[in-house]
């Protein structure tokens, strides 16, 4: 698997704190189920993007080992280059030993505006650039977790309350039953969507489509024609790629329903409309490529997402 691509999603909002090395150095990272590498800035990086983030200093960590291999991760509009090393990574109180880490030496300029310092990828190992072992794979192989699964709860209304849970399911984060959906591919967390409907009419994904459940994408993304169709059904108008709506009509906007594995997953207007003082209200449906869908944070705030490596399934339950 070649160099891994990464997003320049300026709407990403959720990050957690991990620590690396002995003594520990702390970093804010995006827990990203759409990629598989762990990387952070290093002291050898002098890009503008690194200079306003924390940087890892390998020379002060007694448990650091240099792997010597180079790493390059490509974005839509730039790339990150660096090198690989091993150290102890502490995530949620779990000390993962000999974790391979990407340490950047150059980063793309847009990274300087991201709050997070780096990325912690939680997709399958085959996806990792330079054959690195993802953090969760090490948690499993070092028998650090009870169950080979992790789950993500994203809260919509407060600064806090969102949680990544390693080793199982937190009953506080969902209600009702869990729908288990088999993966169509064990690389990304990729599932099959049967169709998308608005007011009972199929508006997209007619006959089925592929979707990736990705905490590292902020919106629900789909093919341009499908997204345009959904946005027009909910009354949004395109303005420079943002689909704007009237903030006063959110309550009247129709549900968008994703039919997956024989079940329905409803996204109401209150969930797919985001409000901001600078541009008013816009929908959370964004244009993507030609056929793939991404079920990002807009979807995961509605549905507690469980990522099971034990069963190679995604579990979804009302958050």
């Amino acid at each position, binding site marked *: *698997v*070649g160099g891994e*691509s*990464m*997003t*320049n*999603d*300026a*709407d990403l*909002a*959720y990050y*957690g*704190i991990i620590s690396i090395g002995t003594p520990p150095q702390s970093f*804010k990272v995006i*827990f990203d189920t*759409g*990629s598989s590498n762990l990387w952070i800035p290093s002291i050898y990086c002098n890009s503008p993007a690194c200079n306003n983030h924390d940087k890892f200093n390998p020379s002060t960590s007694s448990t650091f080992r240099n792997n010597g291999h180079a790493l390059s991760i*490509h974005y*839509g*509009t*730039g790339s990150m280059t660096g090198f690989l090393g091993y150290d102890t990574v502490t*995530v*949620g109180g*779990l000390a993962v030993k000999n974790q391979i880490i990407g340490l950047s030496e150059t980063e793309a300029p*847009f990274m300087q*505006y991201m*709050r997070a310092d780096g990325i912690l990828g939680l997709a399958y190992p085959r*996806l990792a650039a330079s054959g690195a072992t993802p953090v969760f794979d090490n948690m499993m192989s070092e028998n650090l*977790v*009870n169950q080979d699964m992790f789950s993500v709860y994203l*809260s919509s209304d*407060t600064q*806090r309350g*969102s*949680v*990544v*849970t*390693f080793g*199982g399911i*937190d009953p506080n984060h969902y209600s009702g039953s869990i729908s288990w959906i088999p993966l169509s*591919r064990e*690389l*990304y967390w*990729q599932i099959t969507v049967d169709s998308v409907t608005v007011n009972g009419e199929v508006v997209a994904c007619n006959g089925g489509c592929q979707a990736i459940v*990705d905490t590292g*994408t*902020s*919106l629900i*993304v789909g093919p341009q024609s499908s997204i345009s169709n959904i946005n027009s059904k909910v009354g949004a108008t395109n303005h*420079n*790629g943002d689909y704007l709506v009237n903030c006063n009509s959110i309550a009247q906007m129709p549900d968008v329903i994703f039919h997956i594995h024989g079940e329905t997953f409803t996204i109401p207007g209150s969930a797919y409309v985001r409000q*901001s003082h*600078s*541009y008013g209200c816009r929908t959370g449906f*964004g*244009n*993507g*490529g030609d056929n*793939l869908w*991404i079920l990002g944070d807009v979807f995961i705030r509605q549905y507690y997402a469980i990522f099971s490596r034990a069963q190679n399934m995604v579990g979804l339950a009302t958050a």
Partner: protein
Amino acid sequence: CLFQVPLEKGKTARETLEEQGLWEEYRLKYPYNPMAKFEDSFA
């Protein structure tokens, strides 16, 4: 037992850029391509 990492819902890059009046320039300079992460051959 479960190991949990609380996530902070922080200010987004876009909100920072809008506050600084840089969003329009940034948006044109670094067009967002959500599919950049996903290699066609893998997905």
